[in-house]
């Protein structure tokens, strides 16, 4: 199912994501301050930039350690963008919004994009 969706997504460029909801996976290990901060930051950024078109799945590796290998998780917290394609991986507590936007392809890493943020 998931694979199908990913493949259909490949045909679209990242910016034309009108209909497809984003699938985001946040890997954490327990309810640490850092993981809570990461989740809060992610929620805020998604609300601001994606409207309602997103799904966030939080994976606690303390509960499901076997899931760490699949996405090659080393650092925590790690956010994996499953959809739209291509897969993106960003690490850290997502406190640097600019980096998160660049990492999620929501903003090209150009100086022109800065005024939007203000």
């Amino acid at each position, binding site marked *: 199912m998931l694979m199908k969706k990913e493949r259909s997504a490949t045909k679209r460029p990242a910016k034309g994501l009108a209909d497809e909801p984003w699938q985001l996976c946040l890997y954490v*290990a327990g309810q640490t301050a850092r993981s809570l901060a990461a989740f809060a930051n992610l929620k805020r950024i998604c609300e601001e930039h994606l409207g309602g078109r997103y799904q966030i799945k939080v994976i606690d590796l303390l509960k499901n350690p076997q899931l*760490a290998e699949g996405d090659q998780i080393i*650092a925590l917290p790690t956010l994996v963008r499953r959809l739209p394609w291509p897969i993106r991986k960003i690490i*850290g507590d997502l*406190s640097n919004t600019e980096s998160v936007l660049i990492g999620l392809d929501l903003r090209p890493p150009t100086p022109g994009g800065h005024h939007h943020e203000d």
Partner: protein
Amino acid sequence: MKKAKLKAHPTLPKAPTGIQGLDEVTDGGLPRGRPTLVCGSAGCGKTLMAMEFLVRGATQFGEPGVFMAFEETAQDLAANVASLGFDVPRLVAQKKLLIDHVRLERSEIQETGEFDLGGLFVRLNYAIDQIGAKRVVLDTVECLFAGLPNPGTVRSELRRLFRWLKDKGVTAIITGERGEGMLTRQGLEEYVSDCVLLLDHRVAGQVSTRRLRVVKYRGSMHGTNEYPFLIDREGFSVLPVTSLGLDHEICTERISTGVERLDAMLGGKGCYRGSSVLLSGTAGTGKTSMAAHFVNAACARGERCLYFAFEEPPRQIMRNLRSIGLNLTQWVDKGLLRFHASRPTLCGLETHLATMHQVVSQFQPHVVVMDPITSFTAIGEIVEIKAMLTRMVDFLKARRITAFFTTLTHSGDILEGTETDISSLIDTWLLLRDIELSGERNRGLYVLKSRGMAHSNQIREFLLTSHGIELKDVYVGPGGVLTGSARLAQEAQEQAVRVLEGQEIEVRQRDLERKRQVLAAQVAALEANFAAEEAEVRRGIGQLQQREARLQQNRLDMADSRQANGAGAAKRQAKP
């Protein structure tokens, strides 16, 4: 606190690696339940050593292991070590080994704030718990620095990781790339400080040698030298050859050298078992032939011999020796003799030594021949060669293996010096020497020294005949030492003199006999004369006595007839 703990436990618990030689060097293995850093430059065998540690742990010591690979995939790793006979997929299937490949792509990772390496911890922990691992390898953890932003975070997280490994109680190997001026590029040695092994792969004179050194090992004795190691079909092997001392067990058994006269020169019984024999000589003096006799004698006793040939291929040696009546092929066929031929320039001295160790350990010979040791001068300095031979001699002595070395000396060199200057290591030193006289070269054999036996001080002439080596007495006289045809001439001359002298004696004896016979004849003649004379005299005496008796009778008859006295009358009267 850690130190206090160490003092309380003078014998640090260790996890044997099962790697040949490494456990000896480390006095039992790696520190159990602690991380060990294995560092070295690219291609020096870190990954292989780590993998062998896990494989041997799983197969020999019942300790499952986790291999966390940062550089290679599980498939690559398995394929790489398959050539060493490690069946990684099978071990994985048996849950004795778990390979977790950690792939880090710096370009795929965007940093957005503070992070830790919790994912790594989770994965490692999960892997360890999955198979109940006792051993862990992290190869090469420094990839984290390249794969992740913020080295400061990585550094502190690694520190935490190593502490965590210790708490977890697993014996770990962490590999690290050699850095400029320090052991590892990222200074991991600061964090992993219990045991640090350094692997080295040096090239000197186009010849490479692998070496291992225990840089530190807290709370344990360990060898401090650089030890050569090999990576071959059986994996990793370290050679703790320098750790040998001089407290070998000594044997009083004597063994034949294969040449009867030489045994006679060596106190009548040959050399000691487990001693080292050096045969030095100039080119073409028959060193290999002598060595072959030694081998032949040993094989004939049913002992195993290992022949390291550095100049000739084995078949050539065997062919050539047939010309002096030695059949070594039969011993090869019977498995008593093994040749190990290699050019000295094939690898470095240490590697040679390592190989020889390995072959000796495998074959367990009684006699080892190295022919010739001087060919090593092509690849090393005299000092190095001497060091290597010292280790070889010690190694062989410790195993009571009789060593027979040949060395090539150049004519014109000092007689008592060998190219490699190892005479002090040697128990019995035989010297083959050209003796040049009246236009021919002949071979002379001396026993220069032979520890612990009354050996001959005589030079013997050394002949290679179709039935082996023969030792002849040389002629030593006012004219010097004579060998070869000069000796033969001298012998002929002496023979002639002896014949002459023999004849003289015969003549004199005959003369004497003749004189005795003459004397006897004379005595016989005299006796005959005397007998004749005696007979004559006796006959004369008899005649005279008869005549006297007749005269007396006549006188009586006369008186009777004259009746000159009464008696006669009475007698006559009474008569009728």
